[in-house]
């Protein structure tokens, strides 16, 4: 019943997120013909400095369908929305946005570790589905616009997003074990996520940290799965989950 409870607690965030992502995935595919036409004219634009370089690079990448999907979906839409969902699902943790509910769960003959563990596991499974299922729509729908997208690429990119991005879930989860409200974990984690991804991208640094790992950029460019980055993110994420459970075990409610 703990699983059912965790499902009830997270289901709307999950279902709405899934619906939105599915729509955006369709959008990505069906936008391709229009974007392809636009791209042809963009590469001729001569804008100065960093911004100009970024625009030209973007156009260059999106010349191929694979590049387009990678750029629009795995590096932009999916990453952004999925990360938000990871933070949303991580916030609220054991407290389920209300300490009234927490006291009831705590009065059950179940260890706190189990209650928190089930909550985390449920959310992580939902996040895996959110990374994979909308992405699967792309190879499915691509033929409709006369294109092809490989299942192998889908698998690698979705997995990378999930494994690396779950670190944000873990951070939100840890923060909700420490803070009693819903907002602080969410805002702090969002701030961290933004700084790790957006900052790098805006400044145009070669190392944009998390974003590169989550979008498996090295795999896209040269077939190199970012094992180190993934390993690091996973380790940090697991450590934070472990810490979250430890906090929950020891604190007063």
């Amino acid at each position, binding site marked *: 019943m703990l699983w059912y*409870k965790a499902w009830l607690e997270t289901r709307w965030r999950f279902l709405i997120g899934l619906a939105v992502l599915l729509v955006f995935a369709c959008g990505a595919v069906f936008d391709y013909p229009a974007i392809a036409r636009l791209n042809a004219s963009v590469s001729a634009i001569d804008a100065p400095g960093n911004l100009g370089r970024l625009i030209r690079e973007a156009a260059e990448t999106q010349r191929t369908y694979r590049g387009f999907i990678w750029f629009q979906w795995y590096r932009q839409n999916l990453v952004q929305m999925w990360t938000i969902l990871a933070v949303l699902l991580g916030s609220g943790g054991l407290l389920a946005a*209300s300490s*009234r509910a927490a006291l009831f769960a705590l*009065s*059950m*003959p179940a260890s706190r570790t189990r209650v928190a563990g089930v909550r985390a596991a449920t959310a992580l499974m939902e996040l895996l589905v959110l990374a994979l299922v909308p992405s699967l729509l792309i190879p499915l729908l691509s033929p409709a616009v006369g294109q092809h997208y490989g299942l192998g690429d889908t698998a690698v990119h979705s997995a990378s997003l999930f494994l690396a991005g779950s670190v944000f879930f873990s951070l939100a989860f840890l923060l909700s074990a420490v803070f009693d409200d819903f907002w602080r974990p969410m805002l702090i984690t969002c701030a961290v996520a933004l700084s790790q991804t957006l900052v790098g991208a805006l400044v145009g640094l070669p190392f944009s940290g998390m974003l590169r790992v989550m979008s498996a950029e090295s795999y896209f460019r040269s077939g190199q799965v970012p094992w180190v980055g993934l390993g690091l993110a996973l380790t940090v994420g697991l450590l934070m989950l472990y810490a979250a459970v430890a906090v929950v075990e020891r604190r007063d409610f």
Partner: protein
Amino acid sequence: MPEPIIETVALRKTYGDVDALRGLTLQVQAGSICGFLGRNGAGKTTTLKILLGMMRPTSGEARVFGRRADDSTASVEIRRDVAFVGEDKPLFDYMTVSEMVRFTAAFYPRWRRDLERHYLGIFGLSPAVKVKTLSRGMRTGLAVLLALCRDARLLILDEPTSGLDPAVSEQVLQALVSHVASAEMTVFFSSHHIAEVEQIADRVVMIDRGRATVAAALDDLREQYRRIRFVFDDDAPAAPVFRAEGVERVSRDGRVLTVLASGGAERIVEEARPLGPVSIDVIPVSLKEIFLESSGVEG
């Protein structure tokens, strides 16, 4: 003497610079309905939370069924046989009544379906209604149902009838009374409502500023506590020192000397006779007055 169902020894709890419990020692025996009286902030909720493993004591011991309440593993075992109804009636707002029942029943193999049907009826609860839309009375009813259907040996309730109208209040009290069917069931409830403690409790523990002040059978309190009023012809003697035990407070007002005694009224009367009072009145003391006296409120 059999082992107490609940026992605390010199229990202390400090959060930040607040000393919620400052050496609380109490026992609750099996088969009793024990009322836990105390002012707001006296430490009642803290005590209950420690017993349930929701908080850890700063020092001292708390035991339920003889096991340490601050040990996580033991606490899970304790909760297999305990039902808790918290002050805000904690429940999962996003679940329906029947989902709450199914959730709770999943943890308690001895779930009483007969009582479930009975209390759904008594409190007027329909299975498909979401918990967050329940009125206060129905919410309490559901919390009580979930507590009683577990067939638990011990019920711990924090202000069970707060905010309830008299009719629902009475239904809750009746449910508690019928739960104490045999010597195996115990009820430990904190309350502000002195009248309801007087009605259903057979023992009372009073807590004030983190310590137990009074712990006795209710009938003993009724039979032992007396207010003795001596009236004198001239000014009453200045606070005489009584050798007899049981003198809680002596106050003097003009020609009247009043003694509050927690026992041994006869001996006190005998001791005061030589002072030559014109009249002696021995009056019973209500539980409310005993409570106010023990929590330092001037009577």
